[in-house]
Each structure stands twice: as C-alpha cells, then as structure tokens.
C-alpha cells in the first residue's frame, strides 16, 4: 500500500554549498569520540577508564537508570581521554584508534530463527539500541515497552542534507536485514517515508515488508516527526520508535556479519567547503581531518577575523562542535559556515540586501528563487517578545499551534503542553519557526526545556 501525502507548508533554505554526488575524501581519523551529550536525557555511567584497550563494539558507558542500554566504541584502540565539564559532567570519551580496526564478535543467529528477545538482547549488547529514538521526546526507548509503530524517514529535506539514495547505494541488503529484525520485534508495523520526487527510482523502494508513505513538500517534509504526524500521530500514552535510515544499515551489518561497523558516508556542505561532496568515515571521527577541505571566505569584506563554524548536523539543528570536535552520533552531515560576528551598516534599513535571504517580502529575495546564499551565523537582529505571530504556522506542516505551545512551555503549564502537542514534536520540527522568527525567539531551546520538564514530571 502506498500512501501519498502533499504538504504545502515549509521552506527549503537556499544555503550555498550543496554536496555533489562524489566522494571527496575517505577519512581515517587518529581519534574518535563517543559523546553522552548526543543522547537526550541520558545520565551516563562510565564503564572504561583512561588507558583501557577497547574493540569496536566494546561498551564505553551505559545508561545509569537503565543499565541494559549500552553505548559502544566505534573503533578499536585505547581510551585516551575522558573529557568532563562543569560538575564533572561527562562530555566526551576519546579513543585513540588502532591502525587496523579489530571488531568484537557477536554470536548472531540467522534472522529467520531470531526471537524478539534475542533481537532486543543483541541490539542492547552491541550498542545498536542507542540508535533508536522514540516519540514522544526523542529519547532512547525502554526495551520493556513495545511501540505502536516503527517509523523511518527515507529522505532528508534539511539544508544541504545527504541524498540517501547515494550514500546507501551499497547498503540495501543491510537495510533489508535490519527491517527484518525490527519486524521480529514489532511485526507489520514498520513504516518508511519517501520523497515524492525520487521515490520511483529510490533504492529504498525495493525494501520488502514495510509500508511506504510518499511525501511531497518542502522542508520539514523529510522530518520523521512531521511524517509520523500525518501517518500515525502520537497521542498521550503512544510510543513510536524512529530510526535514522543510515543507522539502519549499521544495524543490518551487525546481523549479517556479527560486528559493529559504524562506517558511513556523510555529506559535507556549506559556504565554507571548497568542493562540497561526500566523505566516507566512521561515526565519531575528529573534524580536524576535514580542515584541508575548507574554503576561504569571500562573503563580506570583514574587518575582523572570519572564523569557520563547524556544525555536526545541518545548519538548523546541528551542534557547533568546533574545528577539533567530533561527529555527533546521529549526524549524517557536516555543515561549515562563516561566523557572522560582523556589523552590517544600516543592514535592516537597506532596501535590498542581495547577499541575504529572507522569507519576508519586505526584502526581495523572493524574486530570485533559484539563488543560493552564503549564509552565516549572524543573528540578524536582537531578541524581542513575540510580535509577528502569523508566520510560524506557515513553516510547520502539522496541526499544531507553535506559538501557543511555546507559550505553554514558558508558563510551565504541563496540561496545556500535553494538549497542544509536545508529544509530537522535537526540536528539529520547530527549527524553521526559529529560523524565520523576526523576534529571534529560541524555539528549539525553549522546546528542549519543555521536554525536559515533561520527562521529569511524568516520570
């Protein structure tokens, strides 16, 4: 059965530096890192010490509250550094990699004879469970509660997102295996969302045993939260699992080869990349390996320095990790933009600003719809109270009133948050509201605080 859904609301952000389908580098990094901060709500407990030797697949830390959930090393090597922040909060566990990766071997029965318990056990022990997220909240689900569905988005509409048909072209068998395993845990409830423009030719369309949903529309049509909203909405008490499609391939490798092979192909894009394209890498690699791929800036004649912001993820939702940071656990792309710490004389008062993009028709960028812009990290204004409240719903293709939800969170009104849809959205779904906001309100930060509050109150 194919289900076609047309979404009109949203916005494709025309940022320059679209990755072209070519591998520009295969990265062999000296150090890798596993970051507890990549997992929302996690309180980690270390199970290794500095100097310990680990294999690819050896647990590094575990969930303190649910110790069966483990987080495993992407490579073999030696734990070189444990980085802590304020109050000794665990930030990063760095691993110095061996030149040749050695894998921890898992005893994997054939998928046909697998029981749901065995499947869960293997996923938990190998660290693959950590790649599953649940709605509501976007946290790692509990192994004890089965979801009402498993939902996978087969495409991304985020700015400069990778084309999964390209990155997963050799991984179809792995994905099929992973889907078969998931179907063992929750039979007949695996859904995949595909892009209307490419679904016919997409390799993902060949996957068997899943239900396809075709989405037609601008960003955030590729967001799994938006797709779930239209296919199997999350009401109070419901749980839906979501898994990143690239991670599905990694799960598949476990069940086909018995090893944790975290390698993947990710997109490298943005105005500060010399030749935007794809890189082959292993999850958690150090971004210092891509410093030779950066471009100098000719964006604006800057009097001051003109640093690069290294973003693990896309420009709307990613993390600023710095030039020596590490790729985030869930991220399939790296975006490099200019730090916009410059002043623009009479910026807001100029009749036209040809180098800036705006959705608003008070500027004229709508006249050049195919132009791509060298966007930077300038806030483009100052923080204000909500004034222009009529625009946010135009970029959120969900039956949710974003301003009312945000105000309920600010008022810490749990009932209203529930009623207005906090179970259905995570930060990335409101990222566009934040992007267009003339009052520069931090939608994602506020929502994140709201979700934290919900987890605390509902526990």
């Amino acid at each position, binding site marked *: 059965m194919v289900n076609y859904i047309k979404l009109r609301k949203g916005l494709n952000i025309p940022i320059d530096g679209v990755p072209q389908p070519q591998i520009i580098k295969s990265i062999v990094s000296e150090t890798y890192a596993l970051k507890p901060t990549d997992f929302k709500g996690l309180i980690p407990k270390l199970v290794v010490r500095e100097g310990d030797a680990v294999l690819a697949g050896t647990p590094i830390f575990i969930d303190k509250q649910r110790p069966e959930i483990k987080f495993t090393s992407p490579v073999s090597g030696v734990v070189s550094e444990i980085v802590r922040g304020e109050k000794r909060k665990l930030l990063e566990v760095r691993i110095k990699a061996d030149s040749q990766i050695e894998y921890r071997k898992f005893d994997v029965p054939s998928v046909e004879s697998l029981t749901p318990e065995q499947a869960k056990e293997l996923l938990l022990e190998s660290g693959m469970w950590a790649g599953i997220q649940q709605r509501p909240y976007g946290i790692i689900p509990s192994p004890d509660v089965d979801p009402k569905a498993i939902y996978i988005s087969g495409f991304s509409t985020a700015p400069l997102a990778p084309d999964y048909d390209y990155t997963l072209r050799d991984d179809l068998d792995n994905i099929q295996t992973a889907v078969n395993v998931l179907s063992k845990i929750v039979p007949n409830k695996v859904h995949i969302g595909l892009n209307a423009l490419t679904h016919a030719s997409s390799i993902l369309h060949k996957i068997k045993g899943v239900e396809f949903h075709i989405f037609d529309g601008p960003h955030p049509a590729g967001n799994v939260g938006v797709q779930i909203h239209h296919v199997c909405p999350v009401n109070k008490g419901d749980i839906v699992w979501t898994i990143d499609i690239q991670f599905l391939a990694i799960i598949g490798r476990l069940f086909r080869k018995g090893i944790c092979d975290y390698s993947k192909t990710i997109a490298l894009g943005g105005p500060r990349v010399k030749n935007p394209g794809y890189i082959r890498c292993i999850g958690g690699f150090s971004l210092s390996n891509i410093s030779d791929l950066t471009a100098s800036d000719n964006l604006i004649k800057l009097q001051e320095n003109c640093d690069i912001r290294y973003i693990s993820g896309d420009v709307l939702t990613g993390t600023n990790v710095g030039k020596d940071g590490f790729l985030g656990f869930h991220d399939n792309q790296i975006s490099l933009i200019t730090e916009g710490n410059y002043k623009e004389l009479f910026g807001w008062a100029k009749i036209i600003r040809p180098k800036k993009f705006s*959705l608003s028709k008070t500027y004229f960028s709508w006249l050049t719809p195919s132009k791509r812009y060298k966007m930077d990290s300038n806030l483009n204004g100052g923080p204000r109270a*909500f004034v222009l409240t009529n625009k946010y719903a135009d970029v959120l293709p969900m039956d949710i009133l974003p301003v009312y939800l945000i105000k309920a969170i600010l008022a810490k009104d749990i009932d209203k948050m529930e*009623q207005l849809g906090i179970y259905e959205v995570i930060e990335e779904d409101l990222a566009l509201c934040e992007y267009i906001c003339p009052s520069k309100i931090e939608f994602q930060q506020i929502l994140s605080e709201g979700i934290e509050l919900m987890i605390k109150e509902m526990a």
Partner: protein
Amino acid sequence: MENKEKKGSIFDSTIEAFQSFLHVPATVTRHGSHVRDCYDLKRVMSAVLVALLPTLLFAVYNIGYQHNLAAGAGMGFWEMVWYGILKILPLYIVSYVVGLAIEFASAQIRGHEVNEGYLVTGMIIPLIVPIEIPLWMLAIAVAFAVIIGKEVFGGTGMNIWNPALIARAFLFFSYPSHMSGDKVWVAGMSAVDGFSGATPLAEATTGTLSHSALEMFIGLVPGCPGETSTIAILIGAFLLIYFGVASWKIMLSSVIGALAVGYLGNAFAEPGTYLAIPAWQHLIMGGFAFGTVFMATDPVTSAQTETGKWIYGFLIGALTVIVRLFNPGYPEGMMLAILLMNTFAPLIDHYVVSSNIKRRLKRATIEK
C-alpha cells in the same frame, strides 16, 4: 567614582538602541538554528511605516487644503503642503519625544533592548487626533498610552490594547470638547465664529451629506489627519498585505461585518435618516478604513489564530456600524469597537485553540 559608573550605565539601553539602529549587531547564534532569516523587528516596523507614508503625505496636503477652503485664503499647492507640515510637525515631535523617552527609560529599567514598537505607534497617534489638539494634551495622552497601555504589561508584544488607540481613548474621555464637535477638525479655524467644519460622519447623523462619495474616497473632507483618504489607506493596505505584516483576513472580515450591519440598517430605514445612508459609504466615512487597515490588524492585540481573525474582524466591522447607527451621541464607533475586540481577542483565540485541542484528541490512530 561610583556615580560615574552609574551614569555610564543609565544610558546603556539608549546607546545600544542607537548602535543597533546604525548597524545590525555582530551577535551570533548561540542555541538552535545556526543561520537566521535577515528579517527582524526593525524591518517589520519600517514596513509598517512605509505603508503609512501615503496616508501621512495625503494628511499633510489635506490639512492645508481644508484650511484654505475654510479660510478662503487662496493658497497654492505648495503653500498648502507647507501649512500642513507646519501644523503636523509639532504633533510628531511631541509624540516621538515623549513616547521614545518613556520607551528608553523602561528598557533601561528592565535591562532589555529598546523595542521598536513605538516607531509605529508614534507615527499613528498624530494621524488619529484632531489637528488642533493642544500639545500638552497630546503629551499626556502619549505618556498614558505608553505607560498604562503598554509598559505596565511588559512592553511591545505583551500589551492587550492597541497603544495608539489608548492615547485616543484617553483624549476622548478626558477632553471631549477638544475631540468632537465641528470646530476641531480644520486647522486654524477653531476661533472663527460661525464656522462649521463638520466631518461627514457628524453630518451623516442628520441624514444629509455635503460631500460626495468621491470626495470622501479621495479624502478631501474634514477629519482626523490620517482617516480621511480611503485611497491612501488602500495603498497602505496593499503594502501591509504584500509585506505579510497585517492580516488580510481581519481587513476583509471587518469590511464584511460593516456591510452586513449597514445593509441591515438600510433595509429598515426611512428615507432621509441616518439609517438610509448606503452601507458601503460607512467604509469611506470616518475612521473605518484607517482603523481596519492599520489598527485592527496590529498583530499583538488582534486575534492570533487564523479562524479567530475572521471572527475578530467581522465583529469590529459590525460593532463599528452599530455604534454609528444606533448611538446618536457617538458619531464614531471604530475606536471603541477595536478596543472592545482587543479585549475579547484572547477569548476568541481561547475557543479556537480549544477546538484545535479537541480535533487533535479525536485523530484516528493506527490500530494496535
């Protein structure tokens, strides 16, 4: 020493305001989205100012034109314009100096950046008061509007009522003799005995109009500076809708509301009475057009849900004409209609949001 340091900090908000007026600041994103749209509140507010320009320019001309007509002074075009500028400029100086001073002070007290909201409010206030208003009254009204109408609620974005209308309502109820009658609408004529510069609305209560519909549409009639010219306001309406700042739904539903009540009145009217004035003429008389386009649509004080906007706008239009037709003591109903609906906008939104909640609860889910 201590005093010096304090002195430096008293003007922090003011200095910041002027700096960010000149430059877009070098602030970079810290949380969430790394790139942001270059649209900010300064741009929003300047868009509204641009939309108000045709109305302001026409107002300047009409002040001179009405004076010339009443006094029989035989002035040329530029003389009339110059006369208008001289008359309206003091109002603007008072409006902006008093209003911005309070804005800057309250931003400093709160430790916030200065908000741009008053740029628009300050532009609107002189357009909706009689041109002969004493400046001290205007100053008190502006102070009242900014402090009681806005800052006590937390500043721009938090206010319940449109601040410009608060200023007008304050004047209307405190100094009625300066806000109504036949003598206050034409500049330089208030001291002339026997002169009548009645607005079309005031005339309409008697059932006879001395101005043609075309004159009212163009705006060459007595009235508040900004309210007379429907055509200039229509240009502004087009700009606001194009810029995406104001809601066309509110404007349209307000027109529908006014016409609905107006035609109902026409149906029961005896010839020659107020009720018999064609309903569509309510759209070009008095402050209806200006209120509908520039004040009912204020995104802060109007209804904020899309369905709510239809209800809110319709009721503003309907109430305006009801007040006009059925309350002979009050020629104009626009101000009170908007203020009343500002009050009820959160209630309208509450019901629209509740229906959204109910709809979301009813959604079908996949069977387990």
